[in-house]
């Protein structure tokens, strides 16, 4: 069969959502950001809220997320995305607002903004990409770097006595009355990506009902920062990250 015969509408089983732009992603090969972006964009598409969604990009690898999401977006200073989102949502309460933040942004420099937005129960979605490393700046230790894990600022492995312990932000925010839906997912297999998408969709639906802050952590890989092939990094993530950061819902609305 010629290629032209195969490319026809009736054979179309999957297409890129128009909520993602056609711009080529700058992310490294095998990185989870691309899939995470896609799941979120598909949710915005399926709910028909592209024109009512305002996103906030962080500082970190996803600093340029606004190149890829075809929605109105603001770029926040490092760690300040939940404060920026608060300013947006408080003055545009009818819009769907999300932040998209890495572990350095959310769990180190932005810890105060994250905890207080969650504690106030701000009605927006926080998407938290946790890969246990600072990717953008070249592989330094993150607040979520595992004990013993090597990075450029923990070259002999993270020594928890001197460098502290990996911070479980997701469990922390689940304790706060302001959060409505708190879950930890991954996007490294098709099945997990689908689960993540379902979680993001639920979060947007809860936002519509003004139920409080929704917090979706996505445990992800960083082949470049971890110095592994994409396949190796996914295996390493399953064997090392998931035991410390177990997947699943931590808090669901009653």
């Amino acid at each position, binding site marked *: 069969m010629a290629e032209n015969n195969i490319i026809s509408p009736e054979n179309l089983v999957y297409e890129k959502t128009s909520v993602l732009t056609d711009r080529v992603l700058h992310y490294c090969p095998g990185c989870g950001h691309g899939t995470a972006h896609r799941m979120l964009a598909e949710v915005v598409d399926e709910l028909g809220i*592209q*024109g*009512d*969604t*305002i996103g*906030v*990009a962080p500082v970190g690898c996803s*600093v*340029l997320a*606004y190149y890829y*999401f*075809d*929605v*109105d*977006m*603001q*770029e*926040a*200073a490092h760690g*300040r995305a939940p*404060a*920026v*989102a*608060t*300013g*947006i*949502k*408080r*003055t*545009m309460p009818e*819009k769907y607002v999300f932040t998209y933040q890495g572990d350095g942004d959310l769990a180190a420099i932005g810890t*105060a*903004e994250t905890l*207080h937005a969650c504690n106030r129960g701000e009605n927006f979605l926080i998407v938290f990409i946790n890969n246990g490393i600072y990717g953008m700046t070249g592989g330094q230790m993150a607040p979520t770097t595992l004990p013993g894990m090597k990075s450029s600022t923990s070259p002999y492995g993270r020594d928890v006595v001197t460098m502290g312990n990996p911070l479980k932000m997701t469990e922390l925010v689940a304790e706060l009355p302001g959060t409505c839906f708190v879950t930890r997912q991954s996007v490294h297999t098709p099945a997990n990506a689908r689960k993540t998408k379902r979680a993001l969709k639920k979060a947007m639906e809860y936002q519509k009902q003004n139920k409080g802050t929704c917090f979706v952590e996505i445990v992800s890989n960083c082949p470049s920062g971890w110095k592994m092939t994409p396949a190796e990094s996914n295996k390493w993530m399953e064997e090392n990250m998931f035991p410390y950061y177990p997947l699943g819902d931590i808090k669901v609305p009653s």
Partner: protein
Amino acid sequence: MKDLRLMKGNEAMAEAAIRAGADAYFGYPITPQSEVIEYLMRENPAERTGMQVLQAESEVAAINMVYGAAGCGKRAMTTSSSPGVSLMAEGLSYIAGAELPCLVVNVVRGGPGLGTIQPSQSDYFQAVKGGGHGDYKLIVLAPATVQESVDYVKLGFELAFKYRNPVMILSDGIIGQMMEKVELFEQQPRLTEEFSWATVGKKPDRDSVIVTSLQLQSEEQEKVNLRLQAKYREVEKNEVRFESYECDDAEYLFVAFGSCARITRKAMEMARGKGIRVGLLRPQTVYPFPYDAINKLAGQVKGILSVEMNAGQMVEDVRLAVNGKTTVKHFGRFGGMIPSPAEILNALEQKIIGG
């Protein structure tokens, strides 16, 4: 009928914010300006006009909440005092870089560090020369009365939106805390316009709006800077504001702003009583600074005394304005101390007339 009240400076600014049609206020308590958020919370403007008021977890968060609301094209503001404004420096740089309008009030107290809760003008450099990183300018209004504090809230929002630039009201602990007669302006409507630069939700017929101060390509970042500089030149051309007193026949000149200008005016009257022909120029905008007006007077007077509640900050701008034409000296009290008119007169006699 005029709406005349006897009000404290901080509370009057809070009332002015509601009447100026502000959409949102985000703030964090700090002496000597906490009455602003206390007044707003008590007044509950959500019911009066729909204005949102939120006590943030820090000044860092407050200014970033302002960023978010301003990025949606809303009239957003915050108020703080010196240590808190230092924490806002990062956010102000981002707001200036992203070309967003907002209003920030600094009710200055003495520094450095935790300093004192008493009034000061020691944040002049921070306000007019930067404070945060990068080449940016705030438009800085310096009220000397409660009336000007109120009027500058309205003017501040107008200038912020005219130039899409952060505006600062550089007040101090005297003006914030004292009560004066003030005429309040009428309630202004809140904005209904959807600005093309604001994130209000993407329409099918336009590209998505991106509010950012990031340009990774140097060529692009230079273009942003050139655009900002062109804007600042426009501001300098159009927005210089000052008042002068008794300058026509002046042999000597005081330059002073804010509360300090009121004390200096008294010193001027005392000097005139002694037959010393001294005038006073009071910048109402300290950025843009009235360089030309001072330069003109520099050709006429024998000496200029810059009177400030700091160790000598505005005096550098006065020297730039004078450009060597005449003697320029500084007199200041600082760390929360307030100069008396007699001290200022004495400084004129010692440093300028006898100097």
